[in-house]
């Protein structure tokens, strides 16, 4: 249960979600992960520590580097994100339903 809390709070931060998105493309080091963000390397290292503790990434030692990759739990989280995209699209199309409903009576008037 504790782990679940850690997973949710780790996912609640946009920078950490962006780091996970980057890792979905493959293993990366701290330098590469820090590059797209306006944050310092120590800040990224702190994010990585949180992600690691949440079970979303794993890190291995390679000389002085500690490259990161998505953990299995991370993959599961990405699957959940698919659901999020579906929800965002669903919101658009729910609005479209209302737009279409408003268009139709006008249409019938034009045709009659």
């Amino acid at each position, binding site marked *: 249960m504790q782990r*679940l809390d850690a*997973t*949710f709070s780790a*996912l*609640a931060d*946009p920078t950490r*979600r*962006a780091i*996970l*998105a980057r890792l*979905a*493309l493959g293993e990366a080091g701290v330098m590469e992960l820090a590059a797209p963000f306006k944050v310092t390397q120590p800040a990224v290292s702190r994010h990585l520590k949180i992600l690691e503790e949440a079970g979303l990434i794993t890190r291995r030692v390679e000389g002085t580097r500690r490259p990161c990759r998505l953990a299995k739990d991370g993959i*599961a*989280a*990405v699957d*959940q*994100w*698919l*659901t*999020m*995209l*579906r*929800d*965002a*699209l*669903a*919101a*658009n*199309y729910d*609005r*479209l*339903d*209302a*737009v*279409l*409903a408003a*268009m*139709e009576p006008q*249409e019938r008037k034009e045709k009659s």
Partner: protein
Amino acid sequence: MTTKLTLTTEGDTHVVVKRRFAAPPETVYRAHVEPQLIQKWMLGPDGWTMPVCIIEAKPGGKIRYEWSDGKGGGFYLTGECLELTPFSRLVHVERMHLPDPTPDNHVETLFEPDGAGTLMTMRMTLPNAETRAAMLASGMEHGMEASYVRLETKILGVRSAAA
């Protein structure tokens, strides 16, 4: 009639979205090519608006959509219309500017009669698997906050089922 949206991945580079609408294909098609209609629904999360909506509905016609969160934040999309078959099929290409342009997303949208309504099928083709992964991740980012509670419920459900 169920209007539930389905979103599936296909092969390495496709994303397919299906959705049913109560209105006939002509109406749904128009809502995809007329700017004043698009501006009413293609908005993403609550609170966002589309102050600029340009679409020249002809082969080679330009597309430009700009979104704003009303607090100085925003991004835009550009693209081109490729093929238009009123009121059944649209093909266009689009890219997001964040602000660097994302790789081209090739989109075919079909509008088929479904009883008195329409079955819409939108098939997106990305240049490669990496681009698709990145696109899905950024799209998810967009809808994340509003749906966070539901995410929590779903992950909890998934985890307890797996345990």
